[in-house]
């Protein structure tokens, strides 16, 4: 039996000129996965027009779709309007909160939001000095705290965290180390390690690497589309052996 199959991608960066193209690649996704998750940067400039393209591409899929926004989706200060367009199209948009989705007989809890930067333990910004720096760090701290609370409150068989920014630096490998503080923060990983989860998905680091792990041993996957090189990846939680053989047969056929 398959426990739970999660299709995930980030950084699809859609615009009017590619309308319809991404949707075509989602054909058959309902046979491959139980839920589809999008890790932010759905648009290029965060305009309402682009937000509508994204909403149209995701509309009417027969599996639940959960998304967070990314920094690009905030660029035009229309993040709430874009989120509303997506919700109208049936997408669950997380904003530092959580949702429980019924997948067959299992409950999947998803917690997340955009996340933010600050860097990684030992080489990070701290809440000290100028107001601007303190605001930067406290924004990430606030987000991490909200995720921790949401994770602790959720009652589910599995819990997945969906973020745009990265909680760890392993999945940034390939990006210049100088920009790591703008790509994520260890505070996000610390919060999730404290509250517990089965998997963390993020995007944002287009030149990063797919696989990593938090200090607490939670699997992290950078699902940015340029990293995956495909329309989405599928991650199975607690799949039993029977599924492995079944799956390979299906692929061979």
């Amino acid at each position, binding site marked *: 039996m398959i426990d739970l*199959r999660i*299709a995930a991608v980030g950084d699809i*960066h859609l*615009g009017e*000129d*590619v309308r319809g193209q*991404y949707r075509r*690649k989602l054909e058959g*996704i309902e046979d*491959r996965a139980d839920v589809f998750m999008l890790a932010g940067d759905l648009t*290029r*400039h965060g305009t309402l027009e682009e937000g509508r393209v994204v909403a149209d591409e995701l509309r009417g899929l027969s599996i639940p779709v959960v998304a967070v926004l990314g920094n*690009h989706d905030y*660029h035009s200060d229309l993040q709430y309007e874009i989120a509303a367009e997506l919700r109208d199209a049936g997408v669950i948009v997380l904003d530092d909160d959580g949702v429980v989705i019924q997948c067959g007989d299992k409950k999947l809890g998803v917690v997340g939001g955009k996340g933010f930067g600050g860097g990684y333990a030992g080489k990070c910004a701290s809440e000290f000095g100028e107001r601007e720096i303190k605001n930067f760090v406290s924004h990430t701290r606030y987000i991490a705290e909200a995720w921790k609370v949401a994770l602790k409150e959720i009652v589910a068989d599995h819990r997945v965290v969906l973020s745009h920014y990265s909680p760890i630096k392993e999945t940034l490998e390939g990006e210049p180390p100088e920009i790591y503080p703008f790509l994520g923060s260890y505070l996000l990983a610390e919060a999730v390690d404290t509250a517990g989860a*089965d*998997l963390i998905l993020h995007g944002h680091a*287009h*030149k990063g690497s797919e696989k990593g792990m938090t200090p607490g041993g939670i*699997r992290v*996957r950078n699902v940015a*589309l*340029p990293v*995956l*090189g*495909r*329309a*989405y*990846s*599928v*991650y*199975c*939680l*607690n*799949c039993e052996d029977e*599924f*492995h053989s079944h*799956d390979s047969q299906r*692929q061979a056929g």
Partner: protein
Amino acid sequence: MEAPQYVVARVQQALAEDGRTHELGIRVDIRGDQLFLRGQVSGAEQRERLGQVAHETAPELHVHNEIKVVDAGAPGEDEHLD
């Protein structure tokens, strides 16, 4: 003459901030009067826009647009997290 490092920074900033492009991950190199753009984008139009913005930002340089257009492929093998 302006040091090439500053021109590179200016072009990179333009590619990120110009409303036509907003592309963050493009590598810019300058050798003499030649400017090279490298990286990956999802569409041919975006590649052309990046070349245009680079040209406008550094009109004195000859732009070589080596950006690759990548089309996201079909989903591959599932990963089992046990």
